[in-house]
Each structure stands twice: as C-alpha cells, then as structure tokens.
C-alpha cells in the first residue's frame, strides 16, 4: 500500500518535470517565432538608413531610438498620404471580396448540398478540379483576359476572378450536409419559395460557417499580393502589400515608412486573430479533417 502510494508520487513528480520541459520547449519555440516581429518592432523606432546599413539589429540602445518613423508615417506628408490610401484600399477590397465571396459561395454550396439533381456529381467534380490547378498557372491568361475585358487597374479586375472560391464552396457544402434536410420540406409545406427557404431557414443556421469563412477570406484578401500586383498600375489604387513592396527600392530611402508601415499593417490582423481564434482554426482545418 505504502509502496504504491510512493510510486504515484514519484510518477507525478516525473510528470511535473516532463511538463515543465515541454512547456519550456514551446516557450522557446514561441520566442523564436515571434522574434523577427519583435526585431522589426524595435527597428521601427530607429532611422531607416540604419536598417539598410546594419540590418535588423536588435540592440536595445534607447538613445538611438525615437518615434520619428511613426510621426513621419502619421504626419500627413506625401509618403504617409500614400500609406493611408493603400491602407484604405486594402480595407475596401477586403470588405468587398469577403461580402461577395460569401454570398455567392453560400448560394452555390446550397445548390450542391440541398438538392439531388442530374449533374450534381460531375459538376461538383468541377469545383474540386479548380482546386487542383495552382493559380499561378492561370495567372498569365487571366491577366490577358482582364486586359481585354478592360478590367485592368480596377477593383473588379482584382476581385472577380477569385469570387467563386472552391474552398469556400466546399466548406459551406460540408457544413450544410451536416444539417437536417427536413427543415427545408417543412418550409416547402408552408409555401415558401426555394429561394425563400434558402434565405429564411438555412441562412440563420449556417451563421457559424459564415464567421469562419469570413475570417479566412478576409485574411486571404488582406494579404493577397501576386494577383493585385499584376492588375493594379496606378499607385493611388494599390493595396497595402503592393504599396509596401514598391517602397523596397535599392536605395533604401523609404525604409522609414516601410518598417513602421509594416508594423501598423500587422496590428489589425493580429487583433482580429486574437479576437476570433476559434473561427480561424475551424475554417482552416476543415479540409484536413475530411482528408
């Protein structure tokens, strides 16, 4: 009896040590992960010229640190006007593409999930097929197409090709398949139109799926670089990533705006993530669980 008790205590002691080691391990890993961002943050309080000359050195010498980059960024000079224009453009494009993508993909997914129709399987295979071809392959012909449609340098040109996102359709469909179809028949008996059922009965119960997808689409749109880089030509229309990218001249004279601007650009994203973490993870991992 006594021996058994001793064994138990020893085990829990061993577990405590293991627990401390593994927690410390993740602590160190997290530090390594967050380090570049912290280094960037520290660097943003230094003159931009220093960055080009010295790299991202993380010496915490307070005497060389000041708020000049941020004051410059918010001061209302030509560079800062550009920065906030880009910021505004990014917000607008993100908002538009999230709203349009969600509405359209919701309807498409509803069609696939809630009806048995003749060509359902082959048509859904087309949705899957679009996921199998990397966007980069279609980038050039799409670019040509957007030019001939006169959509080059417009918000529509950036948003339209991606609006019917296969992964979003897939996620909504997956979610709806888990809901009881009987609800729809109840609606039909009450004399609702097919569209009315889709809006009045289905929409309220798919809210959690909307939250996950909204966040995922927003992330994609906010950080999207390659396609907007091809479509936009006027600097007043640039989104934040393209704008920041144009600041990367070999002379490095814009690093003040670049590094402070980068930090300002990261903050809203981190804030949204911390507030809605659960939805991020739900939306992201749906494909992995299904396999």
């Amino acid at each position: 009896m006594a021996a058994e008790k001793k064994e138990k205590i020893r085990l829990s002691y061993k577990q405590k040590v293991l627990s401390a080691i593994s927690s410390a391990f993740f602590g160190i890993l997290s530090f390594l992960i967050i380090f570049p961002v912290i280094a960037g943050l520290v660097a943003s309080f230094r003159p931009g010229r220093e960055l080009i000359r010295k790299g991202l050195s993380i010496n915490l010498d307070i005497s060389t640190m000041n708020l000049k980059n941020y004051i410059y960024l918010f001061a209302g000079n030509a560079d800062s006007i550009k920065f906030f224009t880009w910021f505004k453009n990014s917000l607008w494009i993100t908002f538009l593409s999230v709203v349009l993508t969600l509405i359209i993909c919701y309807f498409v997914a509803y069609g696939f999930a809630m009806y048995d129709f003749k060509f359902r399987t082959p048509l859904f295979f087309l949705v899957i097929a679009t996921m199998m071809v990397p966007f980069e392959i279609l980038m050039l012909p799409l670019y040509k197409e957007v030019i001939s449609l006169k959509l080059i340098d417009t918000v529509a040109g950036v948003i339209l090709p991606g609006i019917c996102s296969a992964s979003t359709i897939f996620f909504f469909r997956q979610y709806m398949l888990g809901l009881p179809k009987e609800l729809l028949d109840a609606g039909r008996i009450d004399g609702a139109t097919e569209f009315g059922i889709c809006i009045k009965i289905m929409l309220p119960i798919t809210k959690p799926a909307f939250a996950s997808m909204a966040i995922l689409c927003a992330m994609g749109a906010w950080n999207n670089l390659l396609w907007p880089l091809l479509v936009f030509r006027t600097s007043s229309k640039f989104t934040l990533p393209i704008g920041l990218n144009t600041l990367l001249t070999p002379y490095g004279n814009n690093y003040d705006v670049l590094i402070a601007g980068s930090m300002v650009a990261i903050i809203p994203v981190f804030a949204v993530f911390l507030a809605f973490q659960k939805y991020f993870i739900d939306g992201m991992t749906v494909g992995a669980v299904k396999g």
Partner: protein
Amino acid sequence: MKRKKSILYSKKAAPYIFILPFLLSFAFFWIYPLFSTIKMSFQDIQPAQTTFVGFDNYKKLLIDPAFHIAVGNSFEYMLLTCVILIPIPMLFAVLMDSNLVKAKGVWKAILYLPALTSVVISGTLFRLMFSEYDTGQMNILMHMFGFASIKWLKFKATGLGALLILACWRWTGVNMLYFLSGLKGIDKSLYESAEIDGANAWNKFRFITFPLLKPTSIYVLTISVYAGLAMFLESFMLWAGNSSPNNIGLTIVGYLYKRGIEKNQLGYASAIGLVLLVIALIINMVQLVLNGTFKKEAD
C-alpha cells in the same frame, strides 16, 4: 403536393440557379484561361502579330539552362519543405495534445501568427535578418559560435537555407494546427485499451496515432507539394525582386513571371506554366491513388 408552375417553386430548376454563379466563374476564369494558355504555349506572341510555332516553345525549354535551374530549385525547395514541415509539426502537435504542456492557448496563438503576416512583411524582415553585414541577426549568431560573417543571400546553399527557415517560420504553426485537428478525431479509448495492454508512449504513437493521422498527413503533404512547387513570392521578397545572383532563388513560377510579365513573352511563359500544370496533375493522381479515392465512391 400541388405543382406550382412558377420557377420560384421549382425544385428542378432551383439547384441550377443556385450554382449558376459557379458555372459562369468556371467558364470565364478557369476553362477559358486554361485553354487560352494551352493555345498560347504553341504560339509566338508579338505585339503586332501572333504566329503558330508548334512545339518550338517546349523545345526551347528543353535547352534553356535558366529553366532547368528553376525546376531544380523548385523541386529542392518542395522536397525539403516536405521533409521538414511534416514530421516536425506532427511531433509538436502530439506533444501539444498531451496533457504535459501548460498555457497551450498562448503557444498555439503565437505559432500561428506568422501565417497571418503578409509575405511582403515577412520577406522584408527575413532579408534584413539574413543581411550580409556583421550586424544582421544571423551573422551575430555566427559570431557567437565563433564563425565569420556569411553573405547569406549570395550563395546557393545559404540562400536555400534562408528560404527554408522562412518557410518553417511561416508554416510550422499552421501544419501543427492541421495535425492537432486530426488528433482530435482519434478516439481516446484506443489509447486506454493500449495502456491496459501495456503499450508505452512510442508504441501508442507508432500503432495508433501515426496510422490514424494518415488522412491529415496526406492532406498536409498535398498542400506542401503544391505550395512548394508553386513557390515564388517568398523568393521574390527575400531577394527584393525577381533576380538573385546566379538565379539561386529562381523558381518555376518566378521564371514564368519573368518571361511572361517582365519580358512579355506570353507564349514561352505559357509553356512554362503547362509544364508546371502537368507536374501538378501527375502529383495529384499519385496523391489520389495513395489516398484510395478511386476505391471509395465519389463524394
């Protein structure tokens, strides 16, 4: 049930109306560009005129040294990211899933943060960290171990290393979350019965966790292969543009961008894109076979 004539009540027409936007988008932004890129790959496209050149673009690709370098770089990067970014996040997830780790939420959130940063910002931060000057982080680290400074982004091996570190930084947390969600689906009672049979931690991992994580592993493998082969922006940002010394950072998509966008040779660039497409499709077929998709019924 009474049959209404109005289209609003038609159960037959409704699904087609609902999926119409997809069909339109599919036609305009997928099928059309796909066929037009196939067509362009057999053409020489000049501003004034377009001529059909047969397989000339593909023949040129066969003897284009820059293209060979790009393919080599993309494959190296893809293979190494798969080798690193699957087993390590899997182990991290298993550890994270055990009841040993404290403050899980904090670590998970921090590990996921890099995936939220735009590649413009992360690329800039890493370029500065890998700066060739003595004051860059990586060189400070080298000095700590008594080595001299390295011009990281000027050599093939160190350049690739920098790309891989950037990839690890961005994707470790994401892949770990995939595995964590896979682990959630494993029935805990399996472990309990294994314990009764006297299985140790390794055996439990080897015979329960690892096999049951197979769908997740295949998913992560697929997206890693895709992302690896189509990698472009990481290199674009790390070298501050699409040119690196001796093309050490050139990838397939980078070369496609260079030829198609920078040099406006749409025909040649389309041929590059189609080579990538064929590679992607082959890998897809292999993945579907491995996954046993053909054995199951569709859907």
